[in-house]
């Protein structure tokens, strides 16, 4: 068995095989064994006919399909390891130029391999990590949020409705003096300024006192969903039952005690600041990583074959679909709802997919170039991390990968590569800033690898 590889345009490798007749005879034999039950020859029970008679009776051709499949698979695997190819698509038998038990087989297989990556600059990119500074205003803002969350509703009796109050009302709507469907409600808590009701309604409640009965004149908006009502002027008869006002807690030590384990407001503020700083640091770190990766990717040259992009799109769609299933939506339904078909959906993912593939390729080749190695300990640590993340036992994680830990190793390499980049550049960033900065900023607009969470949020919004 001999094979020659020719790598052509678009990383399309053409492997030519020359299988000797002995090897092909073996393949024919395997093919015969596989199909033996199918050969019905008079005088023989199914599965009992000898090969020489089957070949005489049906002709050798009946065995070719399976024989080629068998040899091709074997030869292909050997060729891949022999020429250390990195296939990314399914191999396809391209041409069979010669076949026969007396001649052996000659055929070619076409397969797309991983493209060569021309690495650009990857150290001293001059990208700096943002040092987050948390200002007092930000702490106050956070505090305000907590305060808002801890607000209480206090009944008000001695004054009229103000903006921001919650009014409990009974109401009934009349169109030309006749009640209409869905225009009635009682003891409804309407927060003034929330915009829940049609425009104009809430404003007219302001200034009323508890126990008031009054008319509200409003006009339904033109784009209202009901055909009968849109654009119509109606009258609501409203009775104001009660008024409640939101009372925000005072910011003092008492408040701090209520919402946290701290005794004084100063301590609580400090803890808020630390928490905010931590988040900001983490974000800055992620941001830094992304910028670095983007800069390296942008500086490298790689010609991504279409198959890889398509595969990545498939993967993204799969991910998307399973996420949606989790929320009880089928992908098809979602697409229908969004007025998209599969093709346009795929097209919309193309850019992101290309980006992901390019990032992965560049990072992988960088990892190789830096000769980053992964020890068993590190693999175990990664598994432990994953098990914590998904709340599974390490054994379960291992079982999911089917004992094939190369995926985990790749992950570790990816991270170590990023760590290397970070190290390289943080040492540089101590120096005064160079003029390289704008380059990084320019490439910073695209989204790369770490966007999955955001995407899932988009989906939730779109699906509802």
């Amino acid at each position: 068995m001999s094979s020659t590889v020719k790598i052509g345009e678009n990383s399309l490798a053409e492997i030519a095989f020359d299988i000797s007749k002995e090897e092909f005879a073996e393949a024919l034999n395997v093919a015969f064994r596989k199909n033996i039950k199918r050969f019905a020859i008079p005088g023989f029970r199914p599965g009992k006919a000898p090969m020489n008679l089957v070949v005489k009776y049906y002709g050798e051709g009946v065995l070719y399909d399976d024989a080629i499949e068998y040899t091709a698979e074997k030869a292909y695997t050997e060729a891949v390891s022999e020429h250390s190819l990195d296939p990314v698509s399914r191999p396809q038998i391209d041409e069979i130029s010669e076949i026969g038990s007396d001649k052996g087989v000659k055929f070619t297989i076409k397969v797309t391999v991983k493209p060569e990556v021309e690495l650009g600059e990857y150290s001293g990119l001059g990208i700096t990590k943002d040092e987050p500074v948390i200002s007092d205003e930000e702490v106050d803002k956070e505090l305000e949020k907590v305060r808002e969350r801890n607000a209480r509703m206090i009944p008000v009796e001695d004054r009229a409705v103000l903006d921001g109050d919650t009014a409990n009302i009974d109401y009934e709507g009349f169109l030309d003096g006749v009640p209409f469907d869905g225009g009635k409600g009682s003891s409804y808590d309407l927060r003034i300024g929330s915009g829940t009701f049609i425009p104009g309604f809430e404003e007219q409640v302001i200034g009323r006192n508890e126990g008031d009965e009054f008319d509200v004149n409003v006009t339904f908006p033109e784009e209202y969903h009901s055909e009968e009502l849109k654009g119509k002027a109606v009258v609501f008869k409203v009775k104001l039952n009660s008024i409640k006002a939101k009372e925000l807690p005072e910011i003092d030590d008492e408040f701090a005690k209520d919402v946290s384990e701290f005794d004084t407001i100063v301590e609580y503020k400090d803890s808020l600041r630390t928490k905010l700083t931590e988040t900001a640091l983490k974000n800055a770190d992620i941001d830094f990583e992304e910028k670095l990766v983007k800069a390296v990717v942008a500086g490298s040259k790689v010609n991504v074959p279409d198959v890889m992009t398509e595969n990545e799109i498939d993967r993204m769609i799969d991910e998307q679909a399973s996420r949606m299933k989790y929320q009880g939506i089928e992908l098809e339904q979602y697409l229908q709802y969004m007025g998209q078909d599969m093709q346009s959906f795929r097209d919309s993912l193309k850019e992101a997919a290309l980006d992901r593939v390019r990032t992965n390729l560049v990072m992988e080749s960088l990892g190789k170039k830096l000769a980053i190695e992964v020890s068993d300990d590190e693999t175990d640590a990664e598994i432990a991390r994953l098990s914590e993340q998904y709340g599974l036992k390490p054994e379960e994680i291992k079982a999911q990968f089917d004992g094939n830990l190369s995926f985990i190793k790749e992950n570790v390499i990816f991270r170590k590569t990023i760590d290397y980049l970070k190290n390289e550049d943080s040492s540089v960033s101590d120096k005064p800033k160079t003029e390289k900065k704008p380059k990084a900023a320019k490439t910073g607009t695209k989204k790369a690898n770490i966007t999955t969470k955001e995407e899932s949020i988009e989906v939730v919004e779109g699906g509802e």
Partner: protein
Amino acid sequence: MNNAHDIIIRPVITERSNLESSLGKYTFQVASGANKVQIRRAVEELFGVKVRKVNTTNYEGKMKRQGVHSGKTPSWKKAVVTIDLDPKSAEYIGKGGKTMTAAKKYKNTIEEFGFGG
């Protein structure tokens, strides 16, 4: 009926006959009127082998019915021919009592045994 092709009609190919062929026993359907001597000569002539033994048996045709019509499949004769798997070249005593070996060689298989053979 002296033509060898008229005597040997077709090989009988079954699991059993196929197995026995490796032991040098080849099974044929032969003309019903042929005797063992004729079969031996016909096989030797057609396949160039040395026949050691011929066993024959007659098969009575089966009664077949299609509604009220009844008929019979043809009767036939089967011959199991045992050939010499290690044939010596034909010898004869030539002039002056010398033993001569004929140029003719026997084969030790019937390669044609099979479909279309």
